[in-house]
């Protein structure tokens, strides 16, 4: 069965549904009146209230209140989840041995208990970030300027990693700092810190901030530090390089 859901199950039935879901490695969703205690790196206690409890197949364990994006209490993937029934009261526990920590939910009454075994083979594709700008520069260095040649990425300096280190047409070293959003003075300061690492370099080193736009104070600071700016919008298209699936060749599950 892919999906099972029951309204107002008693504590014994809730216990059964959760155990079934756990042994099937399902995603379990419970709406219940519960209280929560956590003990581990710190301690926390949450009094009785109506909450949504989620246990995912990988052992992620979350208790959500009726507000906020983040769960109020949670345990990360690979937690050991266990249900137990003591004197008619249902307990749900998520624990880890390293670091030693334990989240316990006491379920007072259940409004809904369910489990779900879906199929999901896709991963998220992302674009519009610095990483995508970097690929764009490597694929087409001309967009920086004619003759620009990238020579290293994530070049390590005592002040952090340089996005792209390259050379211009005259052979001068060029330090590129990429920002996918409007860049402020912090971006300029960051670029300046990388430039400082080349202060004993004999030849001239250029520093270029690459971003869709810069703030006015950042623009002034760039001038003061004798750094350059190139306007570039991160790509919004998804990559064309894909891993096919075996389904494409007629495999089935």
């Amino acid at each position, binding site marked *: 069965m892919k999906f099972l859901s029951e309204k107002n199950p008693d504590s014994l039935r809730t216990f059964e549904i959760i155990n079934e879901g756990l042994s*099937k*490695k399902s995603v379990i969703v419970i709406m219940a009146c519960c209280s929560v205690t956590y003990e581990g790196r710190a301690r926390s206690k949450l009094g009785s209230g109506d909450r949504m409890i989620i246990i995912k197949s990988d052992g992620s364990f979350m208790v959500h209140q009726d507000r906020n994006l983040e769960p109020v209490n949670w345990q990360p993937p690979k937690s050991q989840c266990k249900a137990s029934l003591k004197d008619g009261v249902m307990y749900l526990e998520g624990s880890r041995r390293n670091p030693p920590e334990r989240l316990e939910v006491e379920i007072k009454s259940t409004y809904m208990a369910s489990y779900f075994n879906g199929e999901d083979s896709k991963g998220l594709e992302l674009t519009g970030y610095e990483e995508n700008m970097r690929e764009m520069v*490597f694929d087409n260095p001309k967009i920086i300027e004619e003759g620009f040649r990238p020579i290293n990425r994530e070049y390590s300096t005592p002040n952090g990693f340089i996005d792209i280190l390259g050379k211009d047409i005259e052979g001068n070293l060029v330090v590129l700092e990429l920002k996918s959003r409007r860049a402020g003075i912090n971006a300029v300061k960051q670029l300046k810190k990388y430039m400082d690492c080349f202060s004993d370099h004999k030849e001239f080193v250029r520093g270029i901030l690459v971003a869709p736009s810069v703030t006015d104070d950042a623009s002034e600071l760039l001038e003061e530090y004798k750094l350059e700016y190139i306007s570039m919008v991160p790509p919004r298209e998804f990559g064309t390089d894909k*891993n096919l699936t*075996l389904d494409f*060749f*007629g*495999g089935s*599950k």
Partner: protein
Amino acid sequence: MFKAVLSDSNVLKTSFEAISSIVDEVQMKADSDGLRLDALDRSHITFVHLELKSALFDVYSCDEPLKINVDTEELMKVLKRAKSDDVVELTVDEGNLILTFEDEARRTFKIRLIDIEYEAPSPPDLDYPSIFEIPFSLLKNSIQDIGIVSDKISLMVDEDKFIASAEGEFGDAKIEYLHGEKITENAKSVFSLEKIKEMLKADRFSDTAVLSLGNDMPLNLAMKMISDEGELSFLLAPRIESEE
């Protein structure tokens, strides 16, 4: 009753090094012919097939067909504890897979079976233009060479040579090997290096690997034991430049 005894623990250990990095859960099927397993990774990119015939085992008995569903990570944790000269015994009781390692002491581990509804995946049935054999170690080394420059690898075969190559941002790498086989059709496909690495964790199964290649087709990598008593094979979907 199911009981299987293997004097060489490496077969299981090396197979599950690869299998556990590809799939989280797996169903092993045992019957009078032996043990077999078919699994597809979550992203539907890699398919793995393991078959250990009853003749491979020192003792093998299985009265009725049996399905053994396990968490591969839990199984691997236990298999890691086996020393190469340990005798391994597999049995099943109500709800557990029991592994016993025996040398000067008898060490028993129980792994809880899971209750997954498992439909064995069926791999695509493909006709390959080019099939050839190469030493396993050559393949493993090539992957490490390529890893220096790229996260993708192009595998190519022509009349004379098997060529593994990659173009990176800062350099290229190419490995050429005279295969000495009769290949009439050239073939080339590109694969994710990370996915190939997962398969190649099974590096003690066999000294040779049989590769089947086509153009933009899945890679079939098969490893057979000399006596034909065991086989571990993989199917890996290729990477392509799509038009979208």
